[in-house]
């Protein structure tokens, strides 16, 4: 007969069985038994105390993205649980493996609106891959087993387990199950249908202007090698989505940047003019496609995804492929013929030269514009040999445009949900998952302040994050939209900022301020030389806009471009 254990012990012992090394959380009334068991039995799991539960969810998300293993966060009932929701929705949109454990009021109080009761099971139903409410300690081990299995398999995603307080205290015989019993869950773990693959190959072989659009799914499936092999064999240029950045080194001759509303203009032209498009592991969301009806009008589209619900969701697909990206590409490679698309590549190069002519960095100005900082950072990290975690807004777009990512799993950002406040806590998770790598946080002054309290976590855990704030005194991207679409009426976008150097100092984190181009390299070197966290407050030119820009509901063919220098002079 197995030994009896409390629900609280079962939580930790099951986490150990799942290989969990770190848990991000903040204790409260409804999780006291779980935390007490951690102290009493000294389980070898690092608990990272956060400042706010939203941070815990972003940290688990960052850890999950950086390692491919499940990130775990923990919160108490009621407000603790509801504080997790932004992080869970972020992880869900970007397919990140997370298990969230929440305490709940005792079963006898369920539904009675007692102190700190919130129906987090109901609340998170549509922002998690699956969720559980555990009211019987005998079900707990099975639920944890299933939650981890669901979170990491197929299309990864967050799973929440809500555990009543009395369940944590009750005892049962503990046996960790070897298998899950989920008759309704059979994730796609195989290659796509062979007939469909050969039809896809046929289409690619006939194409004159083929293009691959690589998304986050390539990275999640670890299919980068297969993707590059396919592209090289058939000589097909590779564009990516924002979250697909890193699927192919951006210095590769076939890499043609990333597309979308603020993607590279030459990338958008290539996507629009292609005649056959192979989409791999991308959701084709509106930020990438522009108006759905106008996207890539000449292209026959082959869409490979392991989630059947993504096929045909937004666009009409000519050949849907339901399959694992790595296994399916392996089957596809032998069927595509070696090819040369020289004139097509030359056309794309011509569009690229036009993009280069309009480059902000090609213009004669001494302003401290954010792209200049991004480029400097890239050079000073030996050509991008570091991990970057960005927040959401203008700086996020500039980082994606000017930092050439060569490292795999080297960029983490909130793409789908667009969660401001993501960068700092997510980077904490990333750094703990990849302790031997340098992690740079790039955030705007608006988003940074949303989760700035996690500087305490950075300092407490002694994490050597390098934090760059692109401080323009505005909610910059919103200000830009007001610029372009609302006749420069800057409603509520100017910020009242604290002194970020003093803020860092208050946490014992060294920091410096940079106000001109001359100071950029020095500050970055200073941050790199410091053995610990370091913050740089870059006071950037406040009215610089991100180009290109596609107006909402418009076609990617109708991008608003940065004027050529000659056109500026004429004005």
């Amino acid at each position: 007969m197995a030994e009896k254990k409390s629900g609280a012990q079962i939580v930790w012992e099951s986490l150990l069985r799942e290989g969990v090394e770190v848990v991000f959380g903040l204790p409260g009334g409804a999780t006291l038994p779980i935390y007490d068991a951690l102290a009493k039995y000294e389980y070898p799991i690092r608990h990272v105390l956060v400042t706010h539960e939203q941070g815990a969810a972003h940290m688990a998300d960052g850890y999950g993205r950086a390692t491919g293993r499940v990130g775990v966060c923990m919160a108490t009932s009621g407000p603790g649980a509801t504080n997790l929701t932004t992080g869970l929705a972020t992880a869900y949109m970007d397919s990140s493996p997370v298990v969230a454990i929440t305490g709940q009021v005792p079963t006898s109080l369920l539904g009675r609106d007692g102190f700190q009761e919130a129906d987090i099971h109901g609340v998170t139903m549509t922002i998690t891959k699956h969720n559980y409410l555990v009211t019987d300690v005998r079900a707990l081990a099975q639920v944890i087993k299933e939650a981890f299995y669901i979170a990491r398999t197929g299309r990864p995603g967050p799973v929440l387990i809500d555990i009543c307080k009395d369940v944590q205290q009750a005892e049962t015989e503990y046996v960790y199950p070897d298998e899950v019993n989920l008759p309704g869950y059979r994730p796609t773990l195989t290659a796509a249908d062979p007939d469909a693959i050969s039809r896809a190959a046929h289409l690619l072989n006939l194409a004159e202007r083929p293009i691959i659009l690589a998304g986050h799914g390539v990275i999640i499936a670890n299919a980068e090698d297969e993707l590059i092999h396919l592209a090289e064999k058939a000589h097909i240029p590779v564009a990516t989505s924002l979250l697909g950045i890193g699927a192919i080194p951006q210095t590769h001759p076939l890499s043609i940047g990333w597309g979308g509303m603020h993607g590279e203009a030459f990338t958008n032209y290539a996507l629009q003019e292609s005649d056959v498009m192979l989409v791999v592991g991308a959701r084709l969301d509106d930020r990438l496609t522009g108006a759905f009806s106008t996207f890539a009008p000449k292209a026959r589209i082959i869409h490979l995804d392991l989630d059947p619900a993504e096929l045909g969701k937004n666009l009409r697909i000519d050949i849907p492929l339901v399959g694992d990206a790595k296994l399916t590409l392996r089957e596809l490679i032998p069927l595509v013929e070696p090819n040369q698309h020289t004139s097509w590549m030359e056309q794309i190069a011509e569009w690229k030269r036009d993009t280069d002519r309009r480059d902000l960095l090609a213009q004669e100005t001494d302003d401290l514009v954010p792209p200049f900082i991004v480029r400097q950072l890239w050079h000073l990290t030996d050509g991008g040999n570091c991990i970057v975690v960005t927040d959401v807004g203008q700086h996020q777009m500039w980082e994606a445009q000017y930092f050439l990512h060569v490292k795999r799993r080297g960029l983490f950002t909130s793409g789908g949900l667009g969660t401001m406040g993501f960068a700092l806590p997510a980077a904490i998770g990333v750094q703990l998952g990849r302790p031997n790598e340098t992690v740079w946080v790039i955030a705007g002054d608006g988003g940074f302040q949303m989760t700035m309290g996690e500087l305490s976590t950075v300092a407490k855990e002694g994490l050597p994050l390098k934090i760059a704030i692109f401080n323009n005194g505005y909610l910059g991207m919103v200000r830009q939209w007001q610029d372009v679409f609302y006749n420069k009426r800057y409603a509520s976008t100017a910020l009242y900022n604290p002194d970020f150097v003093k803020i860092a100092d208050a946490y014992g984190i060294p920091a410096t301020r940079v106000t001109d181009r001359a100071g950029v390299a020095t500050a970055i070197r200073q941050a790199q030389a410091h053995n610990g966290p370091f913050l740089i407050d870059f006071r950037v030119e406040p009215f610089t806009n991100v180009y290109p820009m596609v107006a909402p509901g418009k076609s990617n063919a109708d991008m608003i471009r940065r004027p050529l220098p000659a056109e500026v002079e004429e004005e």
Partner: protein
Amino acid sequence: MKHTIIAWMEDKPGVLSRVAGLFRRRNFNIESLTVGHSETPGISRMTFVVDGDDRQIYQVQAQLFKLINVTAIEDVTHEPTVIRELALIKVRADNTNRAEIIQLVDIYRANIVDVDVDSLIIQIAGSQERIDSLVKLLSNFGILEMVRTGQVAMVRGGNTRPPVRHNGVS
């Protein structure tokens, strides 16, 4: 066009909430929905009628398929299928018109399941059209109350279904 779809799901807490939440969040136009036990213990069977174009009909199935507790889905619209609905209709009835109502009930092969001095409860099981038709006729007498279950469906013939699992590609 309207599609009749059957979904099998584990009888777990919250499963109805998940399905209803999905229909709401994805903006699917559900015309009718019924759920009850299937022949397998622990598995509920839902029949729903959804109106939409091909993309929407595919999406509703593919999204349902993603719910962990949903074990199988089948679109039976183009199958030979028995589709039935049950209705209880309480009609105003007294000595002057009771005979006439009973005649109608006979014609429609419905049943009278309750009689009172001034009312009748009529039970009818059948296709939606047949029930609509009886309801229209009974409305002349004054319908006091009505409840309809929504449609349930079963494919004809001896093949035991369930359930080919929805393969995800239309």
